[in-house]
């Protein structure tokens, strides 16, 4: 038995919402970044589910691109976080606030 499309859409909407809330309430950049990954993967799940539903390959190919982009973001993001940790010995975003605003 195949689960209907709506199951996947609801699951991905929930995942996306968890990601958004995570970015907004958590203060550790690593956790915030994990929440962003959750948002991207929710979108990936949506693409794959629709791709299966339409019976076309297009949506699944998009997912490959998004995975690659996410990997590139991880590389740059972690480098920035490590570099801040070296000069500040903390990465809490509330303490990394020398710029007012």
């Amino acid at each position, binding site marked *: 038995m195949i689960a209907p499309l709506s199951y996947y859409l609801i699951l991905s909407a929930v995942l996306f919402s968890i990601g958004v809330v995570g970015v907004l309430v958590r203060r550790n950049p690593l956790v915030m970044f994990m929440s962003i990954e959750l948002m991207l993967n929710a*979108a990936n799940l949506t693409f794959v589910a629709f791709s299966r539903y339409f019976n076309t390959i297009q949506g699944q190919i998009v997912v490959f691109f998004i995975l690659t982009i996410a990997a590139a*973001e991880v590389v740059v993001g972690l480098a920035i976080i490590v570099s801040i940790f070296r000069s500040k010995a903390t990465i809490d975003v509330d303490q990394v606030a*020398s710029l007012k*605003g």
Partner: protein
Amino acid sequence: MAPAQVDFVPLIPTIVVTVTALAVLLLGLWLRGEQGIWLAAVSIAGLVAALVFLLGLAGPAVSERRAAFDGMIVADNLSTFFGAVALVIAILTILLSEHVLLIERFSQGEYYALVLLTTVGMLVLTAATDLIVLILGLEILSISLYVLTGFARGRLGSEEAALKYFLLGAFALGFLVYGSALVYGATGTTTFGQIANVLRAPGASSPLLLIGLGLLLVGFGFKLSFVPFHMWTPDVYEGAPSAVTGFMAVGTKAAVFGSLLRILTEAFPALRAEWAAVLWLLAILTMILGNFAAIAQRNVKRMLAYSSIAQAGYIVLAVIAADPLGRAGVMFYVLAYTFMNLGAFAVVVAVADRGDVGTTLDHYVGLARRSPILALAMGVFMLSLAGVPPTAGFMAKLFVFTAAVRAGYVDLAIIGVLTSAVATFYYLRVIVAMYMSAPAEEPAPAPALRVPGPLLALLVIALVATFGLGIFPAVTGDLVGGTLALAK
């Protein structure tokens, strides 16, 4: 199924810039210190070559559309114009940075390569006619900029700015990607033209589609720093090295506005009422908050950050109009903004000391005596940003307000004019500081500022363009189709 149509010709400028970036990255291993000037020369040569290809490709028939890769990218009026602007911005940025890289001891090969790769992102973004290519271009642009923002390694402000920019940029990416997924779900395609075709059918609009469009607009709102998605902008602009701030302010605006204009008019013309309503609200918030927040700033870089938020609000007026005049308005405004804002940042770079110290208004007090050229140039750029004739800024504002009124958005035009009046206050304050305030009590008069050659070249280009576009707006000619429509 027919084999995919592969046409590399529209990609030639992008390929040229990419190859130049890789070459510069490699050459940077050998050429260090003073020799770095050769890296700048190679980068500029590559960018000029790309510009020649781009304009040559467009040829006499600028408005002719040439789709490639199964309609995933195009070469047309819009991509040629914004691509050319992106290449010019990159050339000017290299002139702006050359001297900074030396005194800050930045790694030059990597810096120029990142500037070039950001430009690649802009070229891809403005040519994209498919959601996935759009996201790809936007990320090539953004990821390179995250690194450039944090380029002053060890300076906490720069690292902090990079972190904020990165987190908020990635957050925006999440919205864009999820929005694209929902649009794909509602229409069954990711190509702009086909989305428009599907939506042309009656009753094609669905909640799924509207949520998708809304999320896309949120993503664009972050990238273009519309209020209320602007919180990152002042911090990032202040923390990033000044040359990078100038680049990012004009570069992302040019490319992302080009892309926003394309996606709204090519993929979602059927939903014009919906997106115009959203942008209407964003434009009002952006114009009002951007201008009023700028008044409170003592730091010139921060002031320019809020000013860039406000300027984005004016450009949106023309996007909402979405007719040929509005299109021309977006193009002209972006072009004018490029020169006047990069010019202003050239002065900021020249005035600041090593480590970007010296960007507050106090450092501009008495600038007219220390360096008459810089003070004069800054004065002109400030007046142009404020929209005083006969500068480019005035013509640009005239354009977008006319477009808004013609399209029936008189309310927006009125708010625009009123907030422009408010803006005059903080722009003029810089001029007052430079010319009319005496330094409090200075033990020894500050030494005269020496302006390095490339920076001087940039200032001259920006000044000529600011006056040129202000007095002869028609020089933009066919590229800004409809420029002359204003005169009628």
